[in-house]
């Protein structure tokens, strides 16, 4: 009898769990499934390139910076804000570091400090304006984006490659992944590798995941994003929490800027254009809600991966004209935004039918 009871209770637990697959998990699961479907589909239909482990590593290498800033973006989106200045900050960081390293014969360590300082400065100012002066985040960070882009041109208007030896050595450093290499056309074995940026990105993901899951500050982010009022009543310092989210986001933009700089090795005012857009898209695809309170760093990681996989697929199908990238990202973002909107309306106990009906009626 007790055995049967155990089974039934386990069944009940399972049912409870399946009920608990609500917004967060549902969106996360959709993302992960979409990513694997896409990647396996690419493996089957496009073959060769996607079968190599290096293709996946290349996606990581090219998007390490994007992963870092998307984490920052998810963080502010969880608290119910947004930061679109990150692409601009990345460009400013890479240009400043490039100018410092080449024109002033600087060393790499100070360059890293410079990039962190720039990121922190942006986070500090924007966080103060948004959290303590209660100004709309979009306006503040839009101004931040334009300011950063303008400053990049003021620092130096011509794009150039960095020749600094110390930096080039760091840039060329590669982490070899044993056993995953492939044989190239000449018949030689080539090791699979990742760049240092990827290691940094994965550390950032791990740390942020832990912070959001277990640290007090992390839980406060969710509380503030869910409802300002309730968080305030629970004794959370709402303003300070918001401020910290932008501060961390700015810091991550600085780190992301340096990682991006390590990947491209040059300074240019047009660097990382549209990066903020990709970061927002990745976060949304990864299941972070724009309304705040819902989100997951692992989802964001998969969001970045899906986004770049789809770009790779578009490129390898032969639609390599530049405009297709923009259109596919926008289409994907649109799709996931609508999914979110439907999930939200389901949460409020309104069926999808009602939403569509309402939409039709309002159009009439």
């Amino acid at each position, binding site marked *: 009898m007790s055995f049967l009871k155990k089974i039934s209770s386990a069944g009940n637990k399972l049912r409870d769990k399946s009920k608990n697959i609500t917004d967060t998990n549902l969106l996360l699961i959709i993302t992960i499934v979409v990513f694997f479907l896409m990647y396996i589909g690419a493996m089957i239909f496009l073959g060769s390139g996607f079968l190599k482990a290096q293709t996946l590593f290349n996606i990581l290498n090219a998007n390490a910076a994007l992963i870092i800033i998307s984490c920052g973006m998810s963080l502010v989106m969880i608290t119910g804000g*947004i930061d679109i200045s990150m692409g601009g900050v990345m460009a400013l960081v890479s240009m400043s570091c490039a100018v410092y390293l080449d024109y002033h014969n600087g060393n790499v360590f100070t360059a890293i400090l410079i990039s962190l300082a720039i990121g922190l400065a942006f986070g500090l100012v924007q966080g103060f*304006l948004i959290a*303590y*002066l*209660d*100004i*709309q985040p*979009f*306006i*503040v960070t*839009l*101004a*931040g*984006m*334009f*300011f950063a*882009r*303008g*400053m990049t*041109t*003021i620092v130096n*208007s011509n794009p150039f490659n960095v020749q600094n030896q110390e930096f080039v050595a760091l840039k060329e450093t590669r982490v070899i992944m044993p056993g995953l290499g492939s044989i190239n056309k000449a018949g030689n074995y080539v090791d699979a590798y990742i760049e240092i940026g990827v290691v940094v990105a994965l550390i950032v993901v791990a740390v942020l995941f832990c912070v959001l899951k277990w640290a007090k500050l992390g839980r406060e982010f969710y509380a503030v994003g869910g409802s300002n009022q309730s968080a305030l009543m629970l004794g959370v310092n709402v303003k300070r929490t918001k401020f910290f989210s932008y501060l961390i986001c700015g810091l991550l933009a600085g780190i992301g800027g340096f990682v991006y700089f390590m990947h491209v090795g040059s300074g240019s*005012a047009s660097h990382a254009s*549209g990066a903020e*857009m990709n970061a*927002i*898209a990745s976060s949304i695809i990864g299941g972070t809600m*724009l309304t705040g309170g819902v989100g997951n760093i692992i989802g964001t990681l998969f969001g970045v991966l899906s986004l770049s996989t789809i770009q790779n697929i578009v490129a390898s199908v032969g639609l390599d*004209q*530049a*405009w*297709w*990238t*923009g*259109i596919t*990202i*926008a*289409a994907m*973002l*649109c799709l996931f*935004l*609508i999914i979110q*909107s439907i999930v*939200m309306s389901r949460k409020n106990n309104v069926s999808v039918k009602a*939403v569509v009906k*309402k*939409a039709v009626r*309002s*159009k009439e």
Partner: protein
Amino acid sequence: MQSQNPLLQNTTNFFFKLFKRQIFIPIAALLLLALFNLIADPSFFKIALGYNSAGDPVLSGYLITILDYGSELAILAIGMTLVTAASGGQDISVGAAIAISGSVVLRVLCGTNSRPETLQAPIIVAFLVSCVVAMLFGAFNGALVSVFKIQPMVATLILFTAGRSIAAWINNNELPIVKDATFSYFGSFIPGIPVPTPFFIALACIIIIHLALRFTNLGLYSQSVGINDKSSSLNGLNPAQIKFLTFVILGLCVAVAGFIKVSRLSSINYSVIAKDIEMDAILAVALGGNALSGGKFNMSASILGAYVIQFLTTTLYKFDVQSDALSAYKAVVVIILVILSAPIVREKLSSLFKALKPRQPSKEGV
């Protein structure tokens, strides 16, 4: 002393009244800029009547440039003000949408050949087609905002990314050139009239919107939806419909602005056309003293704000600021404006003013 006091009080009262009027902000900004230019270089205000290469009389000078190039911005500011008022957010896809509508105009005018000797369609047809397309994209944004309840800035981010790509795709990434004199009149001068045509187009738009605000409920409804959409729906309005409508109107404004833009060049550059114009349009609305979180608006102040922005741009150009670096200066202006208009700062400021003001009557009492 006593004879001076009422005078002083009257002037301070007048100042306070003016200060409270919304239109004070753009006027003050305009005067500040004008004063700066007057001190730096009085020749800024010189207007000369010259002849262009075709031998027609044209006015030239920085002020004429401002009137000329400020027109697109003024037209956009009209739509942006309505969208801001009704939805409490801004449309950041206007630059990309201008690229699309401009691309459509050229596509219709040139047909399949990108370098036609004669126009393939009448200009009015091209304009109307671009209006329809721009309104459709406006409707797309509007639907995302009103039906799916996505924040306006995020919803328009989709078109912001895809827009220029779509514009390039419409013309197969070619750069068509229109060799028709009539087409270029809309972006420059009509022979015999020394005032630039875009100014007249902007004037027509301004008159139309003022008539619309006066004789329809557009202004009232969009403001009430922006202030509180729940209570306005209880009063029998349909907030979704009104938000949708404002986005479609913005689409129309975008089509007109895009038409002027392509007419200026008789060609198009997808990645550069109307670059950063969304920032300028938002700035115009903010400079007009309108709350960026929606609600009440003042159309005249927004339009004046647009011209002030163009004044600022022209001034910066005159001092040899690179066009890419312009955005940094404008961003500083935006930040200062939003800080001054933030409720918390306003409260502090007004309490400061109050602390200054009561002293005068109390002095009189003593």
